[in-house]
């Protein structure tokens, strides 16, 4: 029995970000926050946002309890949306969600390349939510809602 074909899902970058996320931890101050829960499996994540004077996201952080996929996704998300305006972040979310569901990315760019290691989840329908949960929390934080509504 070989686990090698799991490498499409658990790429080294995911294992790395899952094990040692660089954007984890609640910051001392923040402008907005929201939680995301997956009631089916118990994963939880909280996202903390700050904005620069121009309204761009600065040093987004998160606090999560969950699997390697959800932690890695939260960490890569923080990297991807840092410096973006809320509307830009929303567009990334939509593209990321599509990629997580289909494995495809119609209009790849640098940001999507950063997130591409997570595209492998589309093969595991029950794990797609692990990857999108932090993003739902991000969207809720951007809207000023405290809690992400699940899909």
């Amino acid at each position, binding site marked *: 029995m070989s686990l090698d074909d799991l490498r499409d899902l658990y790429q080294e970058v995911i294992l790395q970000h899952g094990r040692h996320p660089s954007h984890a931890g609640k910051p001392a101050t923040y402008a907005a926050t929201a939680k995301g*829960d997956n*009631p*089916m*499996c118990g994963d939880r994540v909280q996202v903390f946002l700050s904005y620069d004077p121009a309204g761009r996201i600065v040093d987004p952080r998160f606090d999560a309890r969950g699997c390697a996929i959800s932690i890695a996704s939260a960490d890569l998300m923080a990297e991807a949306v840092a410096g973006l305006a809320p509307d830009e972040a929303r567009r990334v979310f939509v593209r990321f969600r599509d990629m997580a569901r289909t494995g495809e990315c119609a209009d790849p760019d640098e940001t999507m390349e950063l997130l591409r290691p997570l595209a492998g989840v589309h093969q*595991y*329908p*029950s*794990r797609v939510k692990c990857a999108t949960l932090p993003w739902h929390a991000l969207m809720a934080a951007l809207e000023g809602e405290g809690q992400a*509504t*699940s899909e």
Partner: protein
Amino acid sequence: MNDFSPATLDIARIRSDFPILSQTVHGKPLVFLDSAASAQKPRAVIDAMVNAMETQYANIHRGLHWMSERTTEAYEATRDDAARLLNAADRAEIVFTRNSTEAINLVAHSYGRGVLKPGQAVLISAMEHHSNIVPWHMLRDDRGIELRIAPITDAGELDIDAFERKLEDGKVGLVSITHMSNVLGTYTPAERIVQIAHAHGAKVLFDGSQAIVHRRIDVQALGCDFYAFTGHKLYGPTGIGVLWARRELLEAMPPFLGGGDMISSVTDERSTWAAAPHKFEAGTPAILEGIGLGAAIRWVEAIGYDAIAAHEQALTEHAMSRLSTIEGLTIIGRAQDRGGVVSFTMAGAHAHDIATLLDRSGIAVRAGHHCAEPLMRRLGIDSTARASFAAYTLPSEIDALADTLTRVREFFG
């Protein structure tokens, strides 16, 4: 004898989908005219359930493994099927229940106790099935919510003026009414009912247990607020039914049963709820039955409601004309707009005795009060015999019924 020409249905092919139809009863070929009680199951439904059990079964929703994912997909696909069948705006408006009865009880509990207020009223009609009467008796006795009953005419139609008068004082918060009577075959004027009810501030629930078997339902076109149906009458398995409700209503309603799968979080101190529809689906659902229902819906759609409705319309007319000529037989219910069930009484022969005699000839009909005692009382009778038709019913089966009834008449004559 057989002056009936089948509609656009390929009945032979349809009948070949139903293994049971080649059975004999008491040595006679089965003539199954009891589909309004529960319909027979096409091979597609049987196969879907067997296939699930033999090749990809596991508990759903929380499973991270292949079997669980496949079973979840198959089960949740039925939510899409049901949403499409009803033309619901959103698949999240489809709540799975055990049957129509549980669907109506769910509304009586969650909407009745959670949204309606004491002093408000629920309005039903005089031709309801017990499943759309008893939950409201219980709600009334538990919460002081009045129960009103809209009368019917002697032809067995809703008295629409009297119906409107029952709403006039604005106290009725919910109209819960059959879309088609299981005894009289009467369709109620659904659009009119919704119009009047909404004008008086009441929501509308249709008990579509019978209607959806015979006619295409479009909840958005009807404009109603709740629609209930039961899988086993729609060629599906037992143990599964559907409550459709507008999303904002589901969101406003507290949950009904508590347990696994319907929560967002549980601590020692409190529970919070998942979003609809899961909020209303506690515990392991009827997974295999959901999968079977999906196959049933797709089977019905493949035949097409237009063909089914035309076929059943023709059968009903044929039955009305054949039965009318039998001496001493009275057809109960003479509504203009009616579906494929025909109730009757016979002078000198009780409905039970009729049913037993027909059974000996292989003909299955239902006899009794049909879970509609108040309607029986309104009609001044104790019971009727009832023949009911499905997509697989043959005109020759109606002839067999009529011929045998003539002999029953002689037997008791």
